[in-house]
């Protein structure tokens, strides 16, 4: 289970309960940005949870911060809370001050541009440049932002790095795998939380909606579909929790948590279809509408599933690495969670 106790998790849960009621994601999608929600998160210092104390943050436990992320995803957070947490963490790992305002992140790829989640709303963009072991901060507001097609209501923009002035930049000893581990784990937690919320919506709906003279919930066909979805949700939560726990365990070297993070990405990415399909099926046409809440979750699940590479990409990457280790080592990983003994480490 994701740890939803502790000050960070509880503060975030309270803010999301108070300031992100069900109409808020709807209004955000209609163009009314929930500034009060973002301000409350900032006033409580939550986007600095993973910034070290020496750097102006409060070095909170990874563990309970994942609880805060869980709460934000359950509320269909229309502000870049998780993105800012990740961006500030990256800055901190290069010894740079946290971003002033909200932020999103990018990893350098083979192109001079990147797709930025929440790109229309983030004040800053933090880039990890793998080739130069460098982390840089850009002013997103000053940049020309071109919206990209996105499945998510949070939107995405394309950012072209060349031609923009770096506000701050520093060398880092952190690896791409360490950053991947954190991002994949954050997404896994968000996805597990969104799945569970969508499951709850589905259960409520089938208990209320009557067809053929009785509630939908009384039909065995409906029960079996939701039971399968619930088992996928339970597995997703376990995978996300294992990844979160690995990050917490390897706080100094998140690269060590890479396998658990990828396992969560693969497990949950493959589950998305297995849950969103029954959720929409049992909701009938209602689940297909803008006015109902379900799409806040299913659209984000579809977007997060593709982010940083889809489940097929990561299944293959994981399999490639495992194939290079011995079957004994694979068994050791499955049974003890120790994936580090294999002969292959770097990619």
């Amino acid at each position, binding site marked *: 289970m994701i740890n939803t106790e502790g000050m960070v998790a509880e503060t975030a849960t309270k803010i999301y309960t108070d300031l992100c009621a069900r109409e808020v994601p709807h209004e955000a999608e209609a163009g009314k940005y929930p500034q009060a929600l973002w301000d409350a998160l900032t006033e409580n210092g939550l986007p600095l949870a993973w910034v070290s104390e020496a750097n102006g943050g409060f070095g909170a436990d990874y563990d309970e911060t994942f609880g805060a992320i869980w709460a934000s995803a359950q509320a269909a957070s229309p502000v870049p809370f998780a993105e800012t947490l990740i961006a500030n963490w990256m800055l901190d790992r290069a010894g740079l001050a946290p971003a002033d305002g909200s932020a999103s992140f990018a990893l350098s790829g083979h192109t001079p541009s990147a797709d930025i989640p929440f790109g229309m709303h983030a004040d800053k963009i933090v880039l990890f440049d793998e080739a130069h072991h460098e982390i840089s901060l850009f002013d997103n507001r000053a940049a020309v932002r071109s919206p990209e097609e996105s499945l998510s209501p949070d939107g995405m923009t394309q950012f072209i790095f060349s031609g923009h002035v770096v506000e701050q930049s520093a060398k880092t000893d952190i690896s791409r795998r360490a950053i991947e581990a954190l991002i994949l784990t954050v997404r896994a937690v968000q996805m597990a939380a969104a799945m569970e919320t969508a499951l709850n919506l589905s259960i409520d709906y089938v208990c209320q909606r009557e067809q053929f003279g009785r509630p939908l919930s009384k039909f065995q066909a409906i029960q079996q579909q939701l039971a399968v979805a619930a088992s996928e949700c*339970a597995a997703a939560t376990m995978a996300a929790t294992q990844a979160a726990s690995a990050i917490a365990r390897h706080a100094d070297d998140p690269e060590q948590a890479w396998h658990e993070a990828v396992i969560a990405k693969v497990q949950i990415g493959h589950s998305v279809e297995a849950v969103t399909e029954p959720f929409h099926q049992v909701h009938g046409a209602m689940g297909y509408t803008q006015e109902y809440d379900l799409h806040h979750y299913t659209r984000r699940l579809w977007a997060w599933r593709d982010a940083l590479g889809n489940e097929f990409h990561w299944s293959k990457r994981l399999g490639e690495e495992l194939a290079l280790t011995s079957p004994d080592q694979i068994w050791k990983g499955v049974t003890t969670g120790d994936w580090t003994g294999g002969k292959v480490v770097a990619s």
Partner: protein
Amino acid sequence: MQRFNFPVVQPDPALEELRSELQAFLKEEREAGNYRPEPECWMASADPEFSKKMGKRGWIGLTWSSQYGGHDKSALERYIVTEETLRSGAPVGAHWIADRQHAPMLLAHGTEEQKLDILPRIAAGECYFAIGLSEPGAGSDLANVKTRAEKVADGWKINGQKIWSSGAHISHYMVALLRTSPADGRNRHVGLSQIMIDLSLPGVTIKPIVDLSGDAHFNEVYFEDVIVPDDCLLGEEGGGWAQVTGELAMERSGPERFLSSYITLETALWQLSDKMGSDSHARLGKLIANLSTLKGMSWGIANLLSQGVSPETEAALVKDLGNRLENDLTQQVRAMLNDLPAEDWSPDMRRIMNIGVLRSPPNTLRGGTTEVMRGITARQLGLR
């Protein structure tokens, strides 16, 4: 609030020494030709000689006290033994059910004499039990059992038939769910009791059922005026239903629900080595992600069980997901083996794959069908 309770429990390094000992033993036995690894080994692969060796090493009866021949170890140590024997496809079928299910039942409900007599023999790998739940007219509809036990002077007289009793032909006892008084109106759960039956008694007839793989581990067991003493009633008269459902929760979350076919994957991995293509890599990655996740869920439940918590719904979830994975694993490995020309498959690979395919249908049946598992989950979700 999160809906299900699956605590994340870190592996315990103290348990890894036990794991190494088991691995060394199993490797030695396998290399000496004392067994040939098989999928579904805990159901279909029974070898009393092997069970006795396991008993001698102290790997049966780990959890009960030395007073009854046990080893005063934790349920988590038992979990390691379970995992390692499944992984290597060892012939553990003779003692598996007695160790997992009936020894704890005897500890809870048996007389002191029974405990002193039977438990040390189970721990030694010399005494085996069969499950007596299913009947021809009552599979998943367990409350529909018709076999009855009638109170007679100094005991019970049993008449009827059980079916699908794995290993009954080599077992010494069966614990059967029997009707000891009529159902109370439409409530069929009352009037059921659990009774331990010595299978060597007069009136017991055991007939093998050959399954589609050619194995004969299933049996039909007939009871004709079989008389057992009073103290063979386990637990409360009429309390059989509650006892059985409690027991099923324990048996549904163990590693045998998702690792029964692991040997197929492992054999293929040794075969494929560096010959795997990218499609196979993707299949491997997904299988290992699923296995790791299920291991976490099952290990979490094992820890709850060791604290005395018995989460019925979580166990049903593990069984449903695990059974799906077991069958999926065999199918995925079939696809992965396309990377290797069929003539390059080792005889063992071919044998294990064929057994895996032939033994896949019961995965989603035994211990409660998938549909029943989903019914349990649906009830927990508030849909029933």
